[in-house]
């Protein structure tokens, strides 16, 4: 079995969730690498969209910015933000794929401030396009490292909507129906959401990881799905493409 690090595992596992022929709007960082890995392996017809206007590129390398020229390299269209966001808003786009700051049990995300809003300990960038993508796309995928500082009972600031306070809350708030978080991919596990309560539950544990370990690294009560499976580890092929083509400089995976 091939050796791999936590970030490589996370990217490989997440990439398998993007099926060939799907549409995905990707955020900055990890999601860029993941979408590119999917495109270079099992999903050559993945339709990747970037919020600055890049549509269906054949990514030559991982974009550093979701608005750089690689986001429309050999693309099918170079357009603008409204065009991309409106495709999401009118229901065209299957997946929003976001990185996370803080996340709670309902998949609500914080990328705005740590601490009190008026006197923040840390000011982060804010929503960017994340709130829009998480509001509009049918399924939201989130990838983030798993620790109790990120997985919190209550986010300091609710930047982008998960299931808000639970079942029915999105619709009641005014968001398009039948949308919301779908999977959370971390370095420990893959989580989904309980059908009834819309709370996060473990569905796959990565090799060698126990449920207790996930709970210890989570600041809220983590649920277990009816069946918890073990994640298939990254294959030699996935790792080769990731290391040689997607991130050869090791920006994300930390290898050169």
């Amino acid at each position: 079995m091939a050796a791999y690090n936590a970030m490589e595992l996370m990217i490989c596992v997440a990439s398998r969730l993007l099926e060939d022929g799907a549409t995905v709007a990707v955020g900055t960082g990890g999601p860029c690498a993941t979408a590119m890995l999917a495109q270079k392996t099992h999903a050559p017809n993945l339709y990747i969209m970037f919020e600055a206007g890049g549509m269906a590129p054949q990514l030559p390398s991982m974009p550093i910015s979701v608005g750089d020229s690689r986001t429309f390299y050999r693309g099918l269209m170079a357009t603008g933000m409204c065009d991309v966001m409106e495709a999401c808003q009118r229901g065209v786009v299957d997946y929003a794929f976001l990185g996370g700051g803080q996340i709670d049990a309902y998949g609500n995300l914080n990328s705005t401030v740590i601490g009190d809003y008026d006197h923040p300990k840390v000011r982060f960038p804010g929503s960017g396009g994340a709130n829009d993508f998480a509001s509009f796309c049918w399924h939201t995928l989130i990838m983030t490292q798993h620790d109790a500082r990120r997985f919190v009972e209550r986010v300091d600031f609710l930047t982008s909507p998960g299931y808000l306070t639970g079942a029915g809350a999105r619709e009641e708030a005014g968001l398009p129906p039948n949308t919301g978080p779908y999977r959370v991919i971390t370095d420990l596990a893959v989580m989904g959401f309980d059908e009834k309560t819309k709370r996060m539950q473990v569905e796959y544990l990565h090799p060698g990881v126990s449920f207790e370990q996930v709970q210890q690294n989570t600041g809220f009560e983590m649920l277990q799905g009816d069946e918890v499976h073990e994640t298939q580890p990254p294959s030699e092929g996935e790792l080769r493409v990731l290391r040689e083509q997607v991130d050869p400089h090791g920006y994300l995976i930390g290898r050169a």
Partner: protein
Amino acid sequence: MNRSGNGPLFMNPDPDEARAFFRNKKVALTDKVMSVKEAVSRFVNDGDYLGSGGFGTNRIATAALHEIVRQKKCDLGFAGHTTTHDFQILAAGNRGGEKVLARVDAAYIVGLEARGLSPQARRIMQSGEVDVCEWTNYALACRLQAAAMGVSFLPVRSMFGTDTFEHSAAKEIDCPFTGQKVMAVPALSPDVSVIHVHESDCYGNCRIYGITMADLELARASKRVIVTAEKIVTTDAIRERPYDTVIPSFCVDAVCDVPFGSYPGNMPGEYFSDEDHLKVWMAVEADEAQYDAFLEKHIYGVSHFSEYLTRCGGEERIAILRAQELNVGDA
């Protein structure tokens, strides 16, 4: 019950106020070519609300942003619509008692995407010296689109249920046709915007080769527009392919000839971003003395953008970035 965000509304969304302004804006074809120094001096006033084109480190009007800081324009409002290095440049103006930025509509500020957070941009946003209103990228683009359309607001379906909404100036309303809730976002007409393009003629008819972010909306929404262009082309050339014109001359007040004007940002088809320079910028921000020396060397101690380019390695450096941009698929 319909709810309203509690954030400050910095600009009047009344389209009649904008119409009264645009009525007196000259449409006639006049030569608008001038230096960046003159353009910023004439068209950016203290207290103005500023829009910045491009996308943070991509096709940004670096020369105009440096000039705004160099001329110590103060008390500006700002549309922070995926603003990364452009925000970082302006944040340099809030220093030593000076204050370029006073009000920010924030959709994406402070960070440089995968490159991390700017310590100095964080400092000015955490200190309380800048008033802030939260938005999303699409909401802010729609605010510009509303102003471009000449209407007072547009409906969107994001922001609901979040603190982003609570700290915005958006309002929930009922759709008069379906009864569904929609989020009304108010028109935003910046007093002045700076936009970098591939080509413009002397009147300001502009071409952009690549993604347009929110710049088509920004140019139309803004009362005054300063265009910096990689290249000035003839009006004959524009007339040969009118379908390539994406910003019409009547939106534009100044046209500045600034080759490599997006540096250290990426310019599609021309040069890639200078990641080394951006890394150094980020690193020196952590040390006050180093940061002051850096700003002196790159902004205050030069009189023209071309001198900044020279200090960053000049044509040799640009040649490397051009190769990175053009040979990207060869790997």
